[in-house]
């Protein structure tokens, strides 16, 4: 596999491996390509799926290999488009002289942990606390939506939040009516909406589905599978994979941690986790948190009306 005289391959060791990726690797050797390279993650295109080799801080991913430590993955000579050989026990990027040994990785499940079922009032209370903690989040993406849900006026120039809010209102009402099909239809305009490698609308939907899954909402699975299916080709490759995972109610470790903290964490844990979540990407954490908190607090009286009131004037009139 390696060139004669070339430097010996660099080996990185995976400490954890998502069960869906483990299953995919067990199918045997296949070819893949590097889709994108970031400081903490390398995304690999394997057929229709996107697998991720990520640093420890990224946490477990459904289609991910988690590495020990924080190697700067964008300094390893890996470039977009490089061929990748995917085997049962390792992933190799020969052109960069890199092998990721997967055989010692501990299996990690992306299924949302079985959290205690809380009464609606308690969930609403916890959401209110979380919103207060998150209301100083970023002013871009859907960050302004968090502060607006906490009772502050929507900041001027929050065009994306104003656009998303009435859509969310419709979604909340449809889910309340038990109509997952209609909700999926309403969610559709959010797919691929907004800036970034994971558009804000997508992050919001992942958070929404995580909240619905964690609270065992009766429409969670139906809505998730519809959104996951319909996202194909409508958003970025990375986001499409996250929505596909969410479509199967599979979530990354950090989404699980945030969800768990919101539902059952102590005050200190909740504050810490929300702070960490808001720091994800430019606005990804805030976007996800907005969806998560709307889902967990979906039974809050007047939620849909509040959301609708945040609409941009033209949309409110419509």
């Amino acid at each position, binding site marked *: *596999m*390696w*060139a*004669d*005289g*070339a430097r010996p391959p660099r080996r990185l060791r995976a400490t954890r491996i998502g069960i869906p990726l483990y299953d995919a690797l067990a199918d045997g050797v296949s*070819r893949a390509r*590097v889709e*994108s*390279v*970031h*400081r903490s993650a*390398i995304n690999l295109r394997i057929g229709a799926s996107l697998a991720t080799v990520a640093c420890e801080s990224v946490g477990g991913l459904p289609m991910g290999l988690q590495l020990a430590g924080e190697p700067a*993955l*964008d*300094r*390893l000579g*890996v*470039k*977009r*488009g*490089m*061929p990748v*050989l995917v085997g049962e026990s390792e992933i190799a*990027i*020969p*052109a960069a002289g890199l092998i990721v040994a997967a055989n010692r990785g501990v299996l990690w499940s992306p299924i949302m942990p079985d959290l205690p079922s809380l009464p609606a009032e308690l969930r609403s209370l916890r959401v209110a606390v979380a919103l207060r903690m998150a209301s100083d989040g970023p002013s*871009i*993406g859907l960050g302004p939506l968090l502060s607006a849900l906490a009772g502050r006026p929507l900041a001027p120039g929050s065009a994306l939040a104003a*656009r998303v809010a009435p859509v969310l209102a419709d979604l909340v009402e449809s889910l309340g009516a038990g109509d997952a099909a209609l909700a999926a239809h309403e969610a559709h*305009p*959010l*797919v*691929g*909406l*907004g*800036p*970034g*490698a994971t*558009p*804000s*609308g997508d992050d919001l939907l992942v958070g929404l589905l995580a909240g619905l899954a964690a609270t065992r909402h009766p429409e969670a699975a139906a809505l998730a599978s519809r959104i996951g299916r319909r996202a194909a*080709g*409508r*958003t*970025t*490759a*990375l986001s*499409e994979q996250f929505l596909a995972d969410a479509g199967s109610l599979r979530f990354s470790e950090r989404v699980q941690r945030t969800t768990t903290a919101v539902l059952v964490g102590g005050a200190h844990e909740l504050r810490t986790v929300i702070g960490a979540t808001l720091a994800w*990407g*430019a*606005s990804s954490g805030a976007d996800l948190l907005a969806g998560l908190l709307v889902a967990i607090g979906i039974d809050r009286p007047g939620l849909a009306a509040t959301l609708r009131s945040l609409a941009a004037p033209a949309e409110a009139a419509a």
Partner: protein
Amino acid sequence: MNVVQQRVFRNAYRDSVELMRIAAEIERLPGISRAGLVMATPANLAILREAGLADGLDPTAGPNDMVVAVLAAEEGAAGAGLDRAASLMRAAEAEAPGDGRRFEPTTLSESAADLPAANLALISTPGPYATAEALKALKRGMHVFLFSDNVPIEDEVELKEMGRRKGLLVMGPDCGTAIVDGVPLGFANAVRRGTIGLVGASGTGLQQVTCLIDAFGAGVSQAIGVGGRDLHEEVGGAMMLAGLERLSADGGTTVVVLISKPPAPSVATKVLQAAAASAKPVVVNFLGGDADAIRAAGAHPATTFEEAALVAARLALGAEPPSLGDGNEEAIAVTASAGLAAGQTRIAGLYSGGSLASEAGVVLKGMLGSAAAEHQILDLGDDEYTVGRPHPMIDPRLRSEKIEEAGRDPGVGVLLLDIVLGYASHPDPAGALVPAIEAATISAETNGRGLVVVASVCGTRADPQGFDRQRAVLIDAGALVVPSNARAARLAGLIARQVAARGATAR
């Protein structure tokens, strides 16, 4: 009036903060009233449309592409805004070294990883680096097409020894031509596929024979180049023997053709022994070589490339191939020489193909004996002419200069040219020489002389330059165009002989 322009950046990921920073900077530029940078997802494109920023947007932009759209007072401002955005995106990309750029293999290792099923490496590095790359390819189990020249002969021996041990072909160094499974490598022509397999230590020799096989209505299974030194004593014909062995065993080959300048005697013996052992008919063209020895080995000798192609086609087709022309060269020579002055006895053969130049030399020597030495046959692709400049099959400038020079030379009566078509050659080799041919002709006529231009076109009707068009260009320029290089050399020799005979009679 406001204008809207966009630019699409394929597979470009940027985080939101960076996009906002870029958008803000663009909006500060004079004449720009709005800028939007979004991933081209349907949802984002809808927003761009609503904002009036999507008019004329490239419809192929997809969810993984970044769109930069600007609304500007005039086109210049819009263009400047998009250029600035591109520059900022590039700067950001440079800061993130791993991301955003399309992978292009730069080493054999990367290429092999990119295409794991590849079993042949085409190497065209400068000579000093070529051996190492070829060794790497061989160690990976790949056949090698080594276009590079200036590889020491001891390296060639080592490479070919390794190839022999591993059962791999080493085509080269300095291998200009091959056709492997129908795929042309280096300078090669679009020839019909068929059952004639060739091994050649001669680039343009292989081209001429394969093109004429095509013209005779037959086709080529494989054409294996081995480099011009393969039949030297030191190399021992290693790859000609390997190629012959392969073609003898190849189910798609019924006739084998071997092409080379005369080999070292010991090598000729080995090659002819191998030809004798082949179960298939073998046509051998060792330019100017010993036809009796070839015949004694049970092979079919051919003195020219045209004859090699004709014999091979006859064997492959089991019938007489169509004629390439009536061969009425004597009569043409008489007519053509009439315009030449008595002193114009010399031929200036200005060749782009080395093997074609050699063949011309052999033909003239066969016709004129020792008098052939009076004529000048130059291989302008030889190292002494190509230092620091491209090969004349690619760059016609040096040959044009030499043609004009010949026009000014009062002793030159015949200009003998080859025009080599095919992949990698000049897109219009005949047309590129016409100005020089016209200048040479005018120069001669101005000084009360004539100038006969004799040319052959080495190519097929499927070649990208257009075989018929190239012939027509030469004919329009006043050249006599004949079907093969051997015929061209013969016609040139006949004309020169006519002029010389006339001079002798006058004395």
